[in-house]
């Protein structure tokens, strides 16, 4: 019993940590709001369908959602904000991490991602409460159990074998398609090299018909995501909270 316990760092501010590893860039100027990313994400990550009643009550479990809000509420002159695909921002200083009493919401040191250990979660929902972006999804019922939902029987054949299926009472969230990251890393390791930028991409970025979503390495200054993130159009969601999100939004023409 000599295992060393490593607690997740949540106030770490060293240069290497600030750089991060994987990042997303979302161009709101070319996003058409087609929801292809939502569908692709649900298929890739076995995100369950919650059914009509629960979806109507706001329990749809999408890991990515397209936000769009009314700017003016007077009917004829309705102006809308631009589409904003929102998923877990993979904060470096994630507010969801320290509040979990059982280490189910942890920081991955290797990928600098914010991970949810499904089989460790006891469902206090503190992380969901404390997430300023409200991007966590809770399994309110057993949505993936075919014994409870007979309609799922054949649909279960489409589940992605690389991703677990979650049961009731467990919090889940966007992982930046960590199964794809691991696959690419394993391949690169076998070939004795680093993972190249653009070698693979996440399900949402892959499905985007307008190429509004770009995934890549933000620790590589030459990568597409790093180049996009230093333009004047770049911004982060709720930057003032100091969470150091890894998702950059591009908006504002030019």
């Amino acid at each position, binding site marked *: 019993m000599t295992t060393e316990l490593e607690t997740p760092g949540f106030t770490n501010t060293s240069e290497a940590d600030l750089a991060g590893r994987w990042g997303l860039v979302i161009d709101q100027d070319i996003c058409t709001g087609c929801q292809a990313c939502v569908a692709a994400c649900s298929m890739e990550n076995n995100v369950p369908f919650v059914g009509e009643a629960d979806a109507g009550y706001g329990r749809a479990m999408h890991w990515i959602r397209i*936000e769009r809000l009314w700017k003016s509420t007077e009917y004829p002159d309705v102006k809308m904000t631009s589409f904003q695909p929102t998923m877990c921002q993979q904060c470096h200083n994630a507010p969801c991490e320290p509040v979990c009493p059982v*280490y189910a919401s942890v920081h991955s040191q290797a990928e600098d991602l914010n991970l949810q250990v499904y089989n460790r979660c006891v469902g206090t929902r503190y992380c969901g409460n404390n997430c300023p972006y409200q991007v966590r999804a809770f399994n*309110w019922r057993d949505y993936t159990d075919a014994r409870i939902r007979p309609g799922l029987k054949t649909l279960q054949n489409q589940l992605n074998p690389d991703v677990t299926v979650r049961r009731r009472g467990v919090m889940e969230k966007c992982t930046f398609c960590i199964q794809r990251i691991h696959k690419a890393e394993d391949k690169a390791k076998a070939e004795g090299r680093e993972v190249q930028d653009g070698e693979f991409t996440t399900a949402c970025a892959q499905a985007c018909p307008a190429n509004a979503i770009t995934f890549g390495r933000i620790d590589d200054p030459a990568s597409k995501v790093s180049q996009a993130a230093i333009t004047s159009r770049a911004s982060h969601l709720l930057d003032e909270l100091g969470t150091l999100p890894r998702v950059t939004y591009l908006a504002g023409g030019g």
Partner: protein
Amino acid sequence: MATYAKPLARPKQHAEEEHEENPREHLMHDPLPRGQMNAMVMESMNETNPLFWVITAVLAVIVLFALGYEWSVLILQGQGTAGVTRPDYWGVFLVNTVFWIGISHAGTFISAILRVLKIESRRPFTRAAELMTTFGLVQAGLSIFMHLGRVWLVYWMFPIPNERTIWPDFHSPLMWDLMAITTYLLSSTMYLFLPLIPDLAMARDRTEGGWKKIFYKILALGFRGTEGEWKNLTTAMNIFAFAIIPVMFSVHTIVSWDFAMATRPGWSSTVFGPYFVIGALHSGMAAVAIVLFLLRSTMKHYKYFIRPEHFNTMGMLMLLVSMAWAYFYFNDYIVPWYGGDKWDKLVQEYTEKGPLAYLWFTMLIVNIVIPWATLWNKKWRETPWLLAIVGLLINVGMYIERYLIIPVGVTINRMPFTWRQYYPRIEIPMTIGTFALFLLLYMLASRLIPLIPVWEVQEGQEAHMIRKMGKAEISTLSDME
């Protein structure tokens, strides 16, 4: 130049209205022999009318339905049967937790602080208040378990050594909460038990056989009332009375940190710690008033022990705590309002002008206006039923206060896309269940445990004396410690 002479004292014009208090109306100056008081308490415990058992049966059925059937549904089907959803991940279950911990606070406050400060009017009702602490904490603990998504894995929150060396995360305010509530439950139970030992021994000596005799025999720990035993007991009670006060303050401060430590508008407030402590006392004091009224009107002989003077003490405490609560609420309100943070302002506007604004106004009326308007008057304070009604209203107000902070407060967050109002579903029967369980436990305890600490009352009566100083009769108290 004219000079005016003023009388230094005005002659009493309404001499007949000046009510001279007869000190012999007070419990401390109306002593009965120890044996008679013992017999009265034993009789009130053993004589039960059928209505008691009818109410007990009804409560038991409610508990079985709410905490047996409904809770099974909640566990087996998931939290989807409750009304919680994004962004209201926390709902009525945590409102109940905070509420019951609040109720549990008054017991210790009244018992420990009044005992440390040697307030004499505490004597007959310390036990009734301490029992509320223990039974209230039971409801608080159950409410946390109801809230968990996977309650069958709750032991993962306890630091149990395991082969994977996974510990709970002590960064989490929920862990502090768990530690604080456990400490409080254990220490308040011991603090309830210590002054109970002499009364259990009394009950043991006055019970003829049966399972009750065995029950008292075990719990009385062979207490015989020797000088040495009393000395040790008094020392232990003194240590606990002092030590439990910081524990009590820490518990509700830590409960408030569950909210204050979060990065949510309306929650991350530095005044939450003392504000929650005072809020807890506000609801707890009011609950003690209700319990005292119920005991006095239902238990035989309790009109001798619990008198208007005790309601007067409770009323003064309630008024004081209500003023303190108003001060802290004003603090918690004015700082975000003046600060003008966009999100804090939205939370405040939603609370005051949103669809649940009537709750906010009700809270202000029953928590501040009604206590201030009634409890200033001694005659009204000494009216038990009036105090019980005011207490009930304060508890309604304090429940609303927690409701406004938790599910109403989290409706507004920094992502307007996710705003959604919360409606409780299965929470309603289960909340009724916790109230029923509390009453049921209390009713059963009233048949088993002497709710009046007879030895403490007698100790007070021995220490008090009426002496004549000239023509006046003066109540004196000799310190026997």
